[in-house]
């Protein structure tokens, strides 16, 4: 997945409450993923246009929802990093699809953590929905790039 590149000393601090911290982390992951989909878009073929735009729209929605919930509980949400390092070189459609799968897997991990740490039912509902969307989108990217099987047994988990 994309990781922050360079220090931003003005970044808000991670909350100490476990539920808030997990949501904060998920929003930070979504920031990176939205950045990463720019790279995916740049290197994808037109066949993947719909998948790119659907994925990106979904992550924007989750990021905004996560930010709104943090603000509601007086937590300063994370801001996007100045830049992100990619986990590997992406310079063709195959690499783009691989990056997309990797980012969706990281989202699944982040939202499962929200699910496990949350204390409110509606946060768990958001997290299950986000986890499911990440699993479905990852499967779509695997299918688009011919990876078999397209599904994993425990998205976001280590079972």
């Amino acid at each position, binding site marked *: 997945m994309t990781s922050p590149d360079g220090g931003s000393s003005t970044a808000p601090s991670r909350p100490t409450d476990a539920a808030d911290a997990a949501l904060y982390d998920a929003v930070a992951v979504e920031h*990176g993923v939205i950045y990463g989909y720019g790279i995916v878009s740049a290197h994808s073929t037109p066949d993947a246009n719909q998948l790119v735009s659907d994925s990106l729209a979904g992550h924007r929605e989750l990021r905004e929802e996560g930010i709104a919930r943090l603000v509601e509980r007086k937590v300063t949400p994370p801001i996007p990093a100045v830049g992100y390092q990619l986990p590997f070189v992406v310079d063709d459609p195959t690499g783009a699809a691989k990056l997309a799968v990797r980012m969706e897997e990281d989202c699944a991990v*982040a939202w*499962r953590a929200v699910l496990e740490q949350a204390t409110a039912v509606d946060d768990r509902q958001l997290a*299950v*929905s986000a986890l*499911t969307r990440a699993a*479905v989108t990852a499967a779509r990217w695997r299918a688009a790039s011919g990876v078999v099987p*397209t599904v994993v*047994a425990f998205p976001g988990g280590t*079972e």
Partner: protein
Amino acid sequence: MLMGTAALALLGGPVVAACGSTPPVKDLDALIGALERAHDDSRLAGNAAAVAPPKIAATLSVVADQRAAHATALTEELTRISGETPTPSTTASSSSTPTTSGPPPKPPTAADVVAALKQSADGAALVAAQQSGYRAGLLGSIAAACSAAATVALGSAGATP
């Protein structure tokens, strides 16, 4: 920070077992329900794989294996919280011998499996929102896996009912 490890490093320890707490019976019932659905789906997908065209059969076998893995994980969690291995009430129905004297049942299709997985996904998502900690996470992953299998893996196999 090393690239690619950010999320894992941050979220490496979300599995916090609720040590020493005795879960209410409601928790057990919900988990046993999810366990039975996992067994049922695994069996259904396995039976459908036996009669499906090769390409869809391969996908159905993957689904059968994954639902079996869900059953294993749920059994482990039930054993952990209750101190005893759950006795699956569905093992009796694993025999394919029809109990009534009607025509033999039609073998399940991929579409039947898709319908079952969608129900299982909805059920697991509901229970996940009511549970907490590891159990919520486990059920969420199961819901996500069922949705992806129903809508992508089998959806692209032309199995959408």
